[in-house]
């Protein structure tokens, strides 16, 4: 029986169902409702855990790190400036191979200051060594959070669940919350083999010389590559429990023999799907939702894009001076196809710019016009800018 819940409230309740032992919280818009809701669950005795209200995001990540290292299931959530402030810790958590889960309530990064949604925050830490999963809607946010703990604990890698700020976190939707029994059956109690323990003392985070450093990096990279299997397995196994798939590595909607592909991440997918269902030319188009950005699913993308003539990558971040971040990687993935589609690299919805249903048609128009397919901020109104900036 679905219940109308705000995204953040649903995420908070889901986190509670995963029985975290330590939650570290520092407020930042649009993550606040998540940690507020968890605090309320703790206050009402519905969740038994150590809720640590820290003095910065840097400490939020550090408390979670220490807690997981000492053998407890840990959780934190952040966004935007908070993700950037904790960046050093994020790399450290991943390098130490600490299993934990955090929610990134995706938000733009200052300057200019914006509290609204894009993916610049999580994209800026794509190289930190975390698994990154992007959710298209709040049901996926629920299911992915539960899966994230299993993936993290099986791979000994941290997982970042990326949920679009406001457009998901502050949106009320009818949602299926799983039962405690369902989650308990899927997610066994946390048992960290390398946990700090006086009975078996180990040293974690030692100094590593050039004699061993490249091997450590290789093994971290390999662990992420291998984690792709766990991402798929967690989705399949959870689907067996609740009947819902979240898309594994990526999800494809639309015709098998489409000529045009539109690839995106996060909540834009929902908008595109709605537009797609109403569109007369829908048979020509397939939509690809990249759910797992790290590890990057090269093979799955190749498979999804085989036979396409055009591929539009719509992403909510950019690398200034270079262009699209996801599109660059997609291009690399497709370079070995016999027939590479023409790839269009568009940033949309930056800093919370509304992504309307019409985007679908605009994208098809851009393909029909032909011409330059190089990177651009697709929905930027250049007439607002002085000529030299256009």
């Amino acid at each position, binding site marked *: 029986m679905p219940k109308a819940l705000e995204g953040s409230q649903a995420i908070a309740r889901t986190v509670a169902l995963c029985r975290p032992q330590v939650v570290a919280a520092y407020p930042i818009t649009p993550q606040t409702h998540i940690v507020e809701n968890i605090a309320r669950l703790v206050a009402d005795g519905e969740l038994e855990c150590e809720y*640590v209200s820290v003095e910065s995001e840097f400490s939020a990540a550090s408390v979670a790190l220490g807690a997981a290292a000492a053998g407890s299931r840990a959780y934190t959530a952040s966004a935007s400036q908070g993700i950037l402030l904790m960046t050093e810790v994020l790399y450290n958590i991943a390098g130490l191979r600490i299993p934990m889960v955090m929610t990134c309530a995706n938000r733009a990064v200052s300057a200019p200051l914006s509290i609204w949604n894009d993916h610049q925050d999580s994209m800026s830490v794509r190289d930190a060594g975390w698994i990154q999963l992007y959710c298209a809607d709040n049901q996926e946010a629920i299911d992915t959070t539960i899966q994230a703990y299993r993936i993290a604990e099986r791979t000994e890698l941290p997982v970042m669940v990326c949920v679009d700020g406001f457009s998901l976190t502050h949106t009320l939707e009818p949602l299926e919350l799983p039962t405690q029994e369902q989650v308990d059956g899927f997610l066994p109690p946390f048992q960290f083999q390398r946990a700090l323990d006086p009975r078996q003392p180990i040293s974690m985070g030692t100094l590593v010389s050039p004699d061993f450093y490249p091997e450590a990096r290789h093994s971290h990279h390999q662990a992420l590559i291998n984690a792709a299997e766990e991402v798929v397995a967690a989705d399949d196994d959870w689907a067996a429990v609740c009947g819902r798939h979240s898309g594994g590595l990526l999800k494809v909607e639309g015709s098998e023999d489409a000529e045009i592909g539109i690839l995106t991440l996060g909540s834009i997918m929902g908008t595109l799907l709605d537009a797609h269902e109403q569109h007369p030319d829908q048979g020509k188009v397939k939509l690809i939702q990249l759910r797992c950005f790290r590890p990057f699913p090269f093979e799955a993308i190749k498979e999804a894009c085989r036979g396409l003539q055009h591929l539009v990558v719509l992403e909510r971040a950019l690398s200034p001076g270079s262009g699209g971040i996801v599109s660059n990687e997609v291009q690399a993935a497709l370079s070995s196809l016999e027939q590479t589609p023409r790839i269009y690299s568009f940033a949309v919805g930056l800093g919370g710019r509304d992504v309307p249903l019409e985007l679908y048609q605009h994208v098809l128009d851009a393909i029909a016009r032909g011409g330059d397919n190089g990177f651009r901020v697709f929905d930027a109104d250049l007439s607002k800018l002085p000529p030299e900036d256009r």
Partner: protein
Amino acid sequence: MEGNDNALAALRKAQPRFQGIVSGHRACLGCGEALATRLVVETCGPDIMIANATGCLEIFTTPWPESAWRVPWIHSLFENTGAVAAGMEAALKAQGRQTKVVAFAGDGGTFDIGFQALSGMLERGHDVLFVCFDNEAYMNTGIQRSSSTPHAAMTTTSPPGRERMGKRHLKKDIISIVASHHIPYAATASVAYPSDLRQKVRRAMSISGPTFLVIHSPCPLGWGHDGAVSIEVARLAVQTGLMPLIDLERGELTGAMPIRTPRPVTDYLKLQKRFAHLFADTPEAHTELEHFQALADHNIEKFGLLGIGSQSQDTEGADTVQRGGMHYA
């Protein structure tokens, strides 16, 4: 007699002795921090977990695949030790375990870059003993000034020259700042007074809640003295009044080691190359020396350090007494 001594030595060898940090690490000769660490960990016992900030201690004890630690130990970053320790403590609490969490950091990781995480840990009342090994500069990176460096000291980023007399700012009063969090127990200690140090560690370990120790730990390389005189240098810091050994409970002063006969600050300063420029015959050098003496005098008055003659627990008696009883004094 000799036979007895040998028998005693054999007994001592047979006696199992807990060592949390073992020999073979790569600290410099005469390293105050290494000695202080050994004293602290031995006193804490095996049922602890250590969170260690980036710094010399982390570097010289854990060159992979070796480690000098025989207790669970984690190094995360430079500035987050208070928070990592807080997380470990929260985890143990959630698991219903009694193991004590101990945090180690240098003065950089305590006074400067780790200050915010430390303050948060103290404010939230985590059951953690935070130990700062204070060697008064960034020694691991090559002797750069920190906010713990005494004024006028030479470091590589506060060199004396025609326009400067070394560091231009006073050493941060960390113990007062920490005590202002009204934590159950905060104290200063010195490697020159191991029995006092051990007693303070035992005290801190017996308290449930945040406790803090700052241990004055000479760095022969950074301070410019022979490794053989580290203890002498550390002892003179206390005997001059520059490093008062005090206890604070809930922010109130509750103890201070009396100084039997205060020594002039020059006795301490002249052993160290970092203060060599203060012994030039210039008005600026004389002024800085006067400042040092005034600081020591101020401490002696503020903390009531002046002893009342010969006392077993004063700066002359404290260590000797604990070593073998009064008849050795």
